[in-house]
């Protein structure tokens, strides 16, 4: 199945078995191993990427269904000499232990900060008309990203710091 994807602002033509997931395409065909395979069933969030600007689990996407779509991976938001605000905050606050979930956490948080600035509510919002970034809100909004080392408090500190930088 021939598919054209734009990944990190670069266009790729891939020819995949229709069973191939976007996650496997990114890692194995395009040489972008920053996106991690955890559970491969949409439960852990390690494979989180931005699909047309929105966070999704790339393990639950068939590449063939995404012809013409734009994807951003962890490789697309910063580089070792020019980290994104969130990447820098994760380093500074030690927002990881083993680091395996970190690319997914950072991609998810990148989208989450935009969702809050767009005014999207969450299940724990007292009022559906407003969006805020309290600790409880962060925990709820990031619940699709598991960290088996349980670095959650430091991950939330890192996100809070990055959101301050953004302001």
């Amino acid at each position: 199945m021939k598919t054209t994807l734009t990944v990190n602002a670069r266009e790729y033509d891939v020819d995949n078995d229709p069973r191939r997931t976007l996650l496997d395409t990114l890692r194995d065909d395009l040489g972008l191993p920053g996106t991690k395979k955890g559970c491969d069933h949409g439960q852990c969030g390690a494979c989180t990427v931005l699909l047309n600007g929105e966070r999704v689990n790339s393990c639950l996407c068939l590449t063939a269904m995404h012809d013409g779509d734009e994807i951003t991976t962890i490789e697309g938001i910063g580089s070792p000499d020019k980290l994104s605000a969130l990447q820098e905050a994760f380093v500074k606050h030690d927002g990881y232990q083993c680091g395996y979930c970190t690319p997914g956490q950072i991609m998810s948080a990148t989208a989450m900060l935009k969702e809050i600035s767009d005014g999207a509510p969450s299940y724990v919002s007292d009022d559906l008309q407003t969006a805020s970034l309290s600790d409880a809100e962060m925990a709820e909004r990031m619940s699709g990203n598991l960290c088996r080392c349980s670095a959650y408090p430091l991950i939330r500190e890192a996100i809070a710091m990055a959101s301050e930088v953004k302001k």
Partner: protein
Amino acid sequence: MKPFDYIRAGEIEDVAGGQIIAGGTNLLDLMKIQVVAPDALVDITRLDGLSDIAEHEGGLRIGALVTNTTVANDARVREGWPLLSRAILAGASAQIRNKATTGGNLLQRTRCPYFYDTSQACNKRAPGSGCAAMGGAGRMLAIFGTSEHCLAAHPSDMAVAMAALEAEVEITNASGETRCVPMNDFYRGPADRPDVETVLGDGDLVTAVILPTPRAGERQTYRKVRDRASYAFALVSVAGSVRMEGDTIKDVALAYGSVAPHPWMDQKVVEMLEGETASNELFQRAAKTLVPETAPHPDTEYKITLLRRTFIAAMRQLTGLADSAGTDISRAHS
């Protein structure tokens, strides 16, 4: 996954005969473990006219391909049907809600572990093979509407809210003819065919959900009880909407989730509440009417107590006897 032919549908008539895929958040999971192994996979995400929320006879028509996130965030839904926003936001994770669609959410399969385990008997997965949940472990199973062939519960939060809001499912057949069925007639009980879950026939496609006009001033809530605070299926849930006049309950709509093979409703309970003065004693009596005396599986006995308490807490919230976060007032939109 087993090999399949991938077909990108351009017209509604292309959908007959294949396994339909849209968001794929449940289906791909099932295909990876070969609980579902279609010969042909029909991608409907490029069909026209299914991706919008439009105003419709005072209510809304939500296209089947509109994502869960888009529905929950829609300004009109937040104003007029806040219960629906809350129920959707209570489900899954942000990543999954961004991909999952309105039609797909209705059609998601049970999370009964025996349905997922291809080495076990399951009448829903392999008709006639039996039900390993009977005599097995089953704290997520249903307490209402089961049959001797299946004890599974429907896991959706969204569908429960839509049932309470008296939504209808719009179905289009291969000839392009459209019909609407109330949410509760859309699902079939398991009876002797637990594998047939809805009234959809071959070539039928869910094309939209229709929400009727909201009643301004209603209090609405979606109360979900689960094993962890977020990203978990409900053990029980209560979707409710109440209009009060002083202390008197005027209109009530209620639906209950994760307790039956489909969103559960009970007209007797509604009749006990309407026209009465809100009180703890009334809610205790109504709760007793709502719940069954025994559960069909010993592992779900706890759901009887949990549902009774969740119902009472929701009614106290909805009638103003208790102040609680998560109560929203519906505002009519124009």
